[in-house]
């Protein structure tokens, strides 16, 4: 009895904490082998800072994955929101706060359109958001042409550079956000519904969960959080290029699935998604340390995605 219990427990623990182990393992591996270049405050800090800029875009995506939904348009949304903000400030001469507000409204609109087509008109989420990804990329290119590669104003650039006690505010916000969101995911009745919906849509309906609304709200949330990340990134990089945010969606899906979110729905956690993101950052950083040609980064991310999804399928689809 006890033996069985321990066995069961062990199995669960392994699945639940795999991402923590492999992240720590990657960290230790790099610290030992590249103690000079990797195990350096500056390097590790800038790695975490980079994660904190993109962090928000994985929040909404994780919510969607928990429900068994997906959004491939977050990379384009990420780029477009930055470009709209820049356009409002530079080309229209609007104040920074107004530019950000307009861009975020655009993000909300994108989420509403995604949600409406997927939930109300029952369009396949992958195809719908793939279409949205291409469509928004087109709009983004138009905006970047209008911007002509101009550098954003210093007031806008200051946002991602703002520091408290010599720590970037984005890092502080990330840690606070993880704690709050993870608490809500574990405890709050509304966020609990994401797991019910992802585990079984028909059962959720029968027990009175307003699945249509929960889904639409989460599509909007996903675009919204991708937009926040887009604004922080635009503020940090100071310019939006036609390819800004390209491939972000797959990087984020890879990270979330590494963190235990299932593309089949029913599981996922923001904390672990971020750990997945950190792991990916460590791998890419490590490749630089070992002087591997950066051209291979995309290939490696792809390989990790395929491995992660295969494991996810073995673990979650077959039972």
């Amino acid at each position: 009895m006890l033996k069985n219990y321990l066995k069961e427990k062990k199995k669960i623990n392994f699945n639940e904490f795999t991402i923590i182990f492999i992240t720590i393992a990657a960290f230790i591996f790099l610290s030992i082998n590249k103690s000079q270049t990797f195990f350096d405050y500056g390097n590790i800090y800038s790695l975490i800072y980079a994660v904190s800029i993109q962090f928000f875009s994985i929040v909404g995506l994780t919510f969607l994955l928990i429900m068994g939904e997906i959004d491939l348009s977050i990379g384009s949304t990420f780029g477009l929101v930055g470009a709209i903000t820049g356009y409002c400030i530079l080309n229209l001469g609007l104040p920074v706060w107004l530019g950000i507000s307009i861009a975020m409204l655009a993000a909300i609109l994108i989420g509403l359109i995604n949600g409406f087509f997927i939930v109300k008109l029952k369009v396949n989420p992958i195809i719908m958001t793939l279409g949205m990804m291409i469509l928004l990329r087109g709009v983004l290119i138009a905006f970047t042409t209008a911007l002509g590669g101009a550098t954003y104003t210093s007031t806008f650039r200051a946002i991602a550079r703002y520091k408290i006690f010599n720590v970037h505010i984005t890092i502080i916000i990330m840690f606070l956000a993880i704690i709050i969101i993870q608490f809500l995911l574990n405890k709050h009745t509304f966020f609990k519904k994401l797991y019910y919906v992802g585990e079984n849509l028909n059962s959720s309906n029968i027990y009175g969960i307003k699945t249509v609304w929960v889904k639409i709200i989460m599509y909007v949330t996903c675009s919204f959080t991708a937009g926040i990340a887009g604004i922080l990134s635009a503020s940090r990089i100071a310019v939006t290029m036609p390819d800004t945010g390209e491939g972000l969606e797959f990087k984020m899906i890879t990270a979330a699935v590494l963190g235990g979110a299932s593309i089949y729905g029913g599981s996922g956690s923001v904390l672990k998604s971020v750990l997945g993101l950190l792991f990916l950052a460590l791998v890419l950083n490590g490749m630089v340390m070992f002087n591997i040609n950066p051209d291979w980064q995309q290939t490696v991310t792809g390989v990790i995605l395929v491995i992660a999804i295969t494991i996810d399928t073995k673990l979650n689809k077959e039972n």
Partner: protein
Amino acid sequence: MVMLLDLQDISKTFGPVKALDSVTFSVNKGEIHTILGENGAGKTTLMKIISGNIKPDKGEIIFDGSKINKSNPRIMKEIGVAIVYQELSIFENLTVYENIFPESDFKNKIGLIDKHKMEKEAQKKLKLFDLDIDPEEKVENLPLAEQQIIEILRAISYDPKLLILDEPTSALKKKEVEKLFNIITKLKNSGLSILYISHHLSEVLQISDRITILKDGAYVKTLQRNEVKAEDQLINLMVGRNIENLYGKKKYSLRKDRKIFMKVKNLGKENLFKNINFDLYEREILGIYGLQGSGRLDLMKLIFGLDSFDEGYIEINNNKFKNITPNKAIDNGIVYLNENRKDGGLFFNMTACENIVCPVLENIFKNKLIDREKMNNITRSLIEKFNIKIPDVNSKPKQLSGGNKQKLMAAICFGINPLCLIANEPTRGIDVGAKADIHRFLKDIANEGAGIILISSELPEIISLSDKVLVMKNYKIAGKLIGEQIIEEKIVTLAAGSKNKNKQLE
């Protein structure tokens, strides 16, 4: 009597589950031998072993005097075993004769199929059983019973020695069952052995020569038909105990002080329903019976809001609803106990307590934060109340047996303190003990004041539990029966649509 099939010590395990444990029994030539047992007794596994679909772990099969060393469906068919499964496997858009001889060699000189000859042969077969069916008719145009008969004719077209019939009457009306039994008897008289699987006791007693009872994968007993004096005798052997009141007829008592809980008025949906009217009182069990395709399920979906209606309204506790959603229904105390446990009933990979609190999250956690302690306590008390065998509150439903899954679903529904429970096939595919528990639960909550709509395809269940019965046919309410009127003949007559209509009462 000459033995045709002899099984010795047949055992089969699937993982940790012992499906068959040293089963020994035999079938004689020219007899109808019934295998009786509850779900999970091992009937299906036994059939699959005889038909060659599953290999036994242990034991011997002797067929027609020779030992079977190697078996697969092809071999078994060649030596003379034919099987007709519960689910029909006919080709609906082919004709009767094409269905009767699906792999025949009616070839003419140049190797093409000789349809004319096939048709003639089919006609002969049909005549043999006094069947008035046109061999050129497409099978989809035939009533279900005749489709079933075509399926049997196909099975015997290979001249088998043993015919296995797996629950052949489950979709048939009473008259059709008679027709089928006539054919089975004729087949028997022609020297064929028949292995008959069923859990309809009355049918079993009507047709069998011998009855073998299985329980939990083990052989219990073989009885001659004339040894069986009453159905209870068989029930006792199947379950090893008396199930109180399972099929006992309850006394009807109309309480005078009852109120109407729900009024369904002129409900309609384009191309489906028109003018559906009925009332559900507090403290009553309203049975809804109808054959497959009668619309009973679609009607319940409209009432619970899983589908929308476009005419009429539903009045719940004096509030009119022109449209309704499951969410609104639950807010008004109506809950739906679905027939499908896997999809639309439980969350298989979530814990028992997460399952239990799903419909009541916002009601029990007023400040929107989940209190684990409270959740566990609620779950524990419900597990106890419903007698659910589960390791602990964090176990997942996928680990439970069918009966315990069903009880867990009942517990979820009960957790919202329902004023009305729509129970859709609440005992489908569960063992007799769990069935009795569910029946007790339905009676209990009706006594406590709830109105229950019971949809079931099992007549004994409808008859023994309902205060009132609505019989549906062709998406209409064909009739309403109350109290003493609730007897098998009347329900079946209404459902099968005979012309002298019962008067609507109340």
